[in-house]
């Protein structure tokens, strides 16, 4: 039975990377040969489609624009500051001590956690100094963040938006206030 080769294989032919079997097929098959030739013509055209080049001085201006915009940004860091994790962990520990194990119902955060982009990553677990602290308070934090979906609490805390961090802090404050009135 006569079967044509895949488009990926035809791309290999166009790039001169195809194996003998595919090349033999294309040599014998007018339809595939035509498709390769049409693609080759289009490839020739793409080479002519240059982007108009800005004047050379533009690039200095561009870099200065980027640099100015970065001034308003907080300095980039490879990992979150330890004090943030410590503060969250401390607040959670206080809540545990003051309130006990029964969590009060808490409204879910206003927005769902946005999944981390696929290209991003947390520091490796063995390099993350905050992870042991967060694991210690994991049950408590999990109890007050029921709407958050993540595999462990450290991931939840790290993934919180500013709004969600605020909601968590409010929930902890409520727990603390309740504990004082008991």
């Amino acid at each position, binding site marked *: 039975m006569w079967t044509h080769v*895949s*488009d*990926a294989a*035809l*791309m*290999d032919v*166009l790039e001169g990377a195809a194996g003998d079997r595919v090349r033999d097929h294309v040599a014998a098959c007018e339809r595939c040969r035509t*498709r390769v030739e*049409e*693609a080759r*013509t*289009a*490839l*020739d*055209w*793409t*080479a*002519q*489609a*240059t*982007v*108009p*080049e*800005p004047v050379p001085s533009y*690039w200095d201006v*561009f*870099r200065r*624009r*980027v*640099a100015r*915009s*970065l*001034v308003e*940004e907080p*300095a*980039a*860091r*490879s*990992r979150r500051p330890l004090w943030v994790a410590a503060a969250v962990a401390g607040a959670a520990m206080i809540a545990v001590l003051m309130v006990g194990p029964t969590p009060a119902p808490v409204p879910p955060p206003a927005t769902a956690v*946005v*999944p*981390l*982009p*696929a*290209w*991003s*990553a*947390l*520091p490796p677990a063995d390099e993350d100094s905050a992870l042991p602290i967060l694991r210690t308070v994991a049950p408590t934090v999990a109890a007050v963040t029921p709407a958050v979906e993540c595999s462990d609490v450290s991931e939840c805390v790290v993934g919180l938006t500013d709004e969600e961090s605020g909601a968590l802090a409010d929930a902890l404050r409520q727990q603390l206030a309740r504990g004082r009135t008991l």
Partner: protein
Amino acid sequence: MTSIAAPFLILANDEPARVSRFRPREEDRAAIEACQRGEREAFDPLVERYQRDVYRLCYRYVNNHHDASDLAQDVFLKAYRAIGRFRGDSAFSTWLYRIAVNTCLNFRAARKAASEELKDDVADARRRVDDRMEDDELSQQVREAVSRLPEKQRATLILKIYNDLTHEEVAQVLGSTVGTVKANLFHALGNLRKAMADRAPGKRPTPDAKKTGD
């Protein structure tokens, strides 16, 4: 949902290539690590090294200098904000291109939502500005045909042909496989050929036109 407010939305649905043999270049690595230590000025050499590639990539999406310039700046700003999470699993350029492609896709999605009247006015004004730049008709025709390709095909063609990425690198950027990248590229070339052939015969470019300078 407003696409522009949700960067990395469109491509984030795909699983990225996990295995990479493309590590950051040594000169990039030092700058990246300095940025991750909080040295803001260390980002400047990265901008200088990649600004042309990022600008050209953006230009191929929007076909005008003004938007390409704004988008390229936005790409570097997003990259700086996220550089703390860059771990060197891929080349910095690959990572940066992914941000650029997503930024451009979000921009186009947001612009589609704008009123046709406003879009036409802005496009006309920008076209007049662009006309003053050195350009030729064939270049413009091909660029416009490329910009009308389906999104995956367009991204594949731009990254492979104009940004000179390997199939593996394109697969990384687009969260795809090498086989899919090759197939998309072949489809893109086929569609490009068709789009150019569908133009009025008098305006249809031929490869010979380049050789004669027409």
